[in-house]
């Protein structure tokens, strides 16, 4: 047990959505993304807990219902458990009985372990009381009630961590009878054949767990609360479907309302504070020349235009900060509310029958919704789906038909002044493409299709602190990963234009761009820039003097076309080269066809 590679001093293991990541943040001070649905943590994160001058490495394992290696999360967890010095089994106090199934599997691994009864405040509100001392005796390991969100019980948890020595057997509080010692009597396994192949007799273990939970749990009646009422409505067959539509429409309107106002504020600030600076720079550089066109860009009617000049210091800052960032803030604010209240799994329930038409089940809506923010986390989140085929279909559909927030912000900016219908046309085309490609993929990938099987978490009031942390993390990620790419994309446009490279490429591709898609040959430039950043690429489109038909065609093609470099690398990493190339082939073919169709049908 000791001579294996070590993952960590403390490993947090538990079923999905029990709050492992909240506890992890509390222990290590590392910010993590937490939500109210199963599968938020798809990989593991590690951090350091300093306790009494000693550093402990802590790992937050992805949630798994069982150690039986049925899916990737279970396999990852099993490997981690194998090499961890101590385990903290995080348990949802409101669903003790089901959680204990994993606890028993962990006990069979014979690692120093303690049990953290998380969500104890929520259990109390629900009228569930757990006798901690009795549970301790039944399991033979330390048990402590905590609420990672409020910090309740954290001090006793910390002192117990120090008391549980690494690698040794756990100090046992006199088990009530020997049968309840960590060694599960009903197992027929020998020491040697462990590592995930513990053959517990499920029925006996289940009985034992049922006995333990009825012994330690007691219930007091609680009143029917507002969230119960909301629960009844949102799962009601008639009202639930209506509510799904209302929630989505309201979310969209809220994103636009907040986004538009923030954009207006940011534009005002740019004009007030930054315009005089770049205007001086432009005058200093003489209004033209290579340096001027890289830094300031081209003057539009003798003036700097933040949207069209395309200098690194003009559009290069304006696009990320004034056009995109406001929508990043508003989109993730609204998405975080949907995540933390627990609405997303309910949406998955109502989308189930629709998602079956494209060979998926309802839970695939969650990666898709995340993909609307940025395709990278969306594609990563496909790990919550059970099979490779589902992950392939979902990731391909995200790459083709789900535009990210930065791109959507620029689309709204480019088409907004033409009215609502061009924007509706772009979204309508993408939704149609999503269905058609999905429908075809369903027949192409003829595999066994798993059915939806999810726990619907209770509605929770989002914690403002968790919302703030999550928003901060996502905004920071955008600034860290995207800002330099936007500026690089604009630099590339300037230099390649200046060097005349684009003319050469445009001549080469003009048969497709002009004849098939009905656009000027220059339209290939934004499509190529889209490989770096799609938001910057939309900006290039709006500076090309296209008519509305060409602009809409170009934007739809761009949205569907080759994914940006960040999404592409994640696609390769998640699907493997072979499947990623298949996916890209489908992307390119459908983008070409869609562009041609819009061109031919738009009279």
């Amino acid at each position: 047990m000791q001579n294996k590679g070590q993952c960590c001093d403390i490993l947090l293991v538990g079923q999905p959505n029990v709050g492992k990541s909240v506890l992890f943040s509390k222990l290590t001070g590392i910010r993590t993304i937490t939500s109210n649905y199963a599968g938020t943590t798809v990989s593991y994160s590690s951090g350091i807990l300093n306790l009494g001058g000693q550093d402990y490495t802590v790992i937050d394992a992805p949630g798994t219902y069982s150690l039986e290696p049925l899916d990737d999360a279970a396999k990852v967890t099993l490997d981690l458990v194998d090499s961890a010095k101590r385990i903290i089994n995080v348990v949802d106090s409101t669903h003790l009985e089901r959680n204990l199934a994993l606890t028993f599997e962990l006990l069979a691994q014979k690692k120093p372990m303690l049990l953290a009864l998380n969500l104890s405040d929520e259990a109390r509100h629900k009228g569930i009381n757990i006798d901690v001392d009795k549970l301790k005796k039944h399991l033979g390991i330390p048990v402590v009630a905590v609420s990672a969100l409020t910090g309740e019980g954290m001090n006793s948890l910390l002192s117990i961590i120090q008391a549980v020595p690494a690698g040794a057997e756990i100090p046992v509080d006199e088990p009530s009878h020997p049968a309840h010692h960590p060694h599960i009597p009903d197992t027929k396994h020998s020491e040697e054949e462990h590592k995930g192949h513990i053959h517990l007799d499920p029925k006996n273990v289940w009985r034992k767990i049922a006995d333990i939970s009825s012994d330690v749990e007691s219930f007091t009646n609680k009143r029917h609360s507002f969230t119960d009422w909301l629960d009844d409505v949102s799962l009601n067959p008639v009202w639930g479907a209506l509510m799904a539509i209302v929630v989505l429409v309201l979310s969209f309107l809220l994103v636009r309302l907040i986004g538009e106002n923030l954009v207006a504020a940011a534009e005002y600030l740019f004009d007030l504070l930054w315009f005089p600076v770049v205007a001086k720079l432009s005058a200093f550089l003489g209004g033209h020349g290579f340096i001027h066109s890289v830094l300031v860009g081209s003057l539009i009617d003798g003036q700097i235009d933040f949207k069209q000049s395309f200098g690194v210091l003009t559009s290069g800052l304006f696009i990320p900060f004034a056009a995109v960032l406001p929508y990043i803030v508003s989109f993730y604010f609204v998405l975080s509310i949907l995540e933390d209240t627990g609405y997303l799994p309910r949406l998955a329930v109502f989308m189930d029958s629709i998602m079956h038409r494209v060979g998926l089940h309802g839970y695939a809506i969650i990666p898709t919704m995340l993909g609307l923010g940025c395709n990278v986390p969306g594609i990563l989140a496909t790990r919550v789906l059970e099979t490779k085929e589902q992950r392939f279909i979902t990731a391909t559909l995200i790459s083709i038909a789900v535009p990210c927030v930065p791109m959507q912000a620029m689309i709204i900016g480019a088409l907004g002044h033409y009215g609502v219908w061009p924007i509706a046309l772009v979204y309508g085309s993408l939704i149609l493409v999503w269905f058609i490609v999905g429908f075809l993929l369903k027949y192409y990938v003829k595999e066994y299709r798993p059915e939806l099987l999810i726990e619907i978490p209770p509605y929770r009031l989002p914690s403002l602190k968790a919302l703030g942390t999550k928003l901060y993390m996502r905004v920071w990620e955008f600034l860290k990963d995207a800002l330099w790419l936007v500026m690089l994309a604009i630099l590339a446009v300037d230099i390649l234009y200046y060097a005349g490279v684009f003319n050469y490429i445009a001549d080469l591709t003009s048969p497709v761009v002009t004849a098939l898609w009905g656009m000027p040959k220059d339209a290939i430039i934004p499509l190529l820039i889209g490989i770096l950043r799609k938001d910057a690429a939309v900006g290039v489109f709006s500076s090309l003097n296209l008519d509305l038909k060409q602009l809409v065609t170009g934007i739809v093609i761009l949205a569907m076309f080759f994914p940006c470099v960040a999404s592409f690398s994640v696609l390769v990493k998640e699907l493997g080269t072979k499947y990623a190339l298949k996916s890209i082939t489908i992307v390119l073919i459908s983008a070409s066809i869609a562009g041609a169709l819009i061109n031919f049908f738009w009279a």
Partner: protein
Amino acid sequence: MTSRHTVLKDLPCGIDAEIMGIDGGAGIQARLRALGLCEGKKVQKLCNVRMGGPVIIMIDRAQVAIGKRMAEKIIVRPLDAK
């Protein structure tokens, strides 16, 4: 009244039932067991989501949504109607 076996999908809404068995392979059995669904467990059917959507049940005070075709494989015995 004689007890009649049916599948979870066809059980009327609002009815309590006991799971009698799961007509599926080891994979499905394990996935269901992870959420507490196994032989002998008592569940309450809440509803069928329309248009071929999943079945929603209450088990161990948790709501679980089960895809239609999976719910067709779960054999249950209705307990007394309320």
